[in-house]
Structure formats: C-alpha cells, structure tokens
C-alpha cells in the first residue's frame, strides 16, 4: 500500500468517525463542518500534491512537506484558541448557573 491510498483510507475513516459522532450527538454539526473541511483539504493535497509543491515554491520553501507542517501547526493553534474562547464562555455560564442554584436553595431554606 502506498502513502496515497493510506491517506485516502484515513480521510474516509475521519469522515466515518465524524458522521458517527454527529449522529450520536457527541459532536455538534457546526464543529463537524470544520473537520470535514480539514479532511477534504488533506484529501485534495494527497490527490494533487503538485499544488503543495507550487505553493511551497511561491513561498520560497525548499522542502514542501515542511510547509504542510507549518500550516497544520497554525490550524491547530487557531483551533486551540477557538476552544479556549468557547471554554471561557462556558465557564462563565457555569459560574452563573452554580450561583443561581445556590441562591435559590438558600432562599428556599430561609422560607422554611
């Protein structure tokens, strides 16, 4: 098996996992789009690897795969940033919820 077939198998496997998780409600439809897009880009690069060579030449990158690593790292960092923003939002909502529950419980006890 060469690396191209292996990459296509991985891509299809990623699609399968995403679809399964979306169906089970473990992954939101919004988030699944990101993974589908990423997986498709990976597939395109495998299918037309000359595109990566062309892009590397434009950016004066001597070794094209290192450009792929750079792009992958940047995408990962942006993804982590997005997760941190969403985590912070959830944390704030969680604090408000915990406070509201505690205050309601306290008022219920006071009324008894």
């Amino acid at each position, binding site marked *: 098996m060469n690396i191209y077939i292996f990459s296509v198998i991985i891509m299809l496997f990623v699609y399968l996992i995403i679809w399964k998780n979306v169906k089970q409600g473990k992954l939101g439809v919004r988030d699944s789009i990101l993974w589908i897009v990423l997986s498709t880009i990976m597939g395109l690069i495998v299918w037309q690897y000359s595109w990566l060579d062309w892009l590397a030449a434009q950016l004066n990158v001597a070794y094209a795969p290192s450009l792929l690593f750079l792009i992958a790292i940047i995408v990962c960092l942006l993804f982590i940033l997005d997760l941190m923003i969403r985590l912070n939002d959830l944390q704030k909502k969680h604090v408000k919820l*915990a406070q509201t529950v505690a205050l309601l419980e*306290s008022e219920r006890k006071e009324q008894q």
Partner: protein
Amino acid sequence: MRKPVLLIIPAYNEEQVIRGTLDDVLAFQQQEPFFDVIVVNDGSRDSTKQIIEQYVPRIYTVHLPHNLGIGGAVQTGYQYAHRHQYEYAVQFDADGQHVIEELKKMYDVIEKTKSDMVIGSRFKEKTAYKGAVSRRVGIAFFTYFIYLFTGKKIMDPTSGFRIKNRRVIEAFAYDYPSDYPEPEVIVTGQRKGWRIDEISVEMRPRQGGSSSIHSWKTVYYMMKVSLAVVKEWSK
C-alpha cells in the same frame, strides 16, 4: 426585617478560623445592629459548612455546589444583596484579617459622603499593620500602576475590606472578576465614573489558614492583575 448593610463573608476551608470570626462579628452586631451577615461557603471540603450552619438563623448562608474561587463566591454575596435590596454590601475576610469594629467607621463615611465605594486601607495613614516587605512592594506597585492609567491614587488597592452602595452592588452582581478582583474593580469604577474613597482602618495578620498568593502564584498574580488593569482601562 433586613438591615441596610450586608456583610459578605466568603469561606473556603476555613474551619480553623470561621468560628472566631463569626463570634466577633455577631458580638459586634449585638452592639451595632445595622448589618446582616451572610457566609458564602465556596464548596469547602472541611467542616466549614457544618460550623456555619450552627449560626443560622443569626446569619444567612449560601452553599455553593463546588469551589468557584474568591471572585465567584463574593459575587454570589453581591447577587444576594441585590436580590434583597440591601443599601450597602461589605466584603469581610473569614481569616480574621479584618477588624469588625472598623465597619461602623466605613458605614458612617459612605452615608456621609454618598460615595459609591469606600475602601478600608492599611496604608492611607500609619496603622499597626505589619505586612511582609515583598507584599508591601507589590501593593505599592499596583497603587502607582493604577494611578498611571486612571489618575486615581489608592494606597491599598488590594484591600478587600470595602463598602459599596446599590449602584456598585448591581454592577458586581452582574459582572465581577473571577480571581484577584480588588485592583481591577478600582479601574472599572473609575471608568464608570464611580466615586471611590479610601479611609484608614486597622487590620490584623491572618489568624489561620494560608494565603492563596504564594510561590509561583505571586508571578501569576502580578501578571494577571496588571493585564486585567490594562484590559479594564482600555474598554
């Protein structure tokens, strides 16, 4: 019948000191019955909850389902004050650092000056307070850091012993920093046009437990508070 002032005591694993603090506070309340007391148990894992429940109905209690940190606990107190329409709210440390007798002085000042917030300060005038040199240097840094951005010089910007009126209570009930809130909210107040005054009060060293700001947390504290000040100023 609710009193005009709500004394908010956040407590997290304070079993060693909470009884002494509550005894002092309630003894003072007998002499000067102008305030109610609420203890916000911030998800303590020791016997703090059982101890404070022994003081009900002389105090109000709120038990948070788990530890939210000092900001979340104090904000719960402000939410309680806001829901019950208290005129003023005061944060009071459970560890025995704050002297309850000074509350009357702060209450009289805020009533007289109609300030939005009055800060009880260890450094406005010379007091008996003896803190570590490193701590004093850190506090002085924030005094001048805040002054640089706001033009307001608060000699004890880290003091949590503050009395606030309804306007501030409402704002804090809605939004309050999650940790190390004291210096940051001074900048918030300046930005919102609150009148903030500072008066000299006596404080003691903590009577038990350990400070949340130690070792590597000092670096985090300095960075977090400095960034928060700049963030608030730039809003």
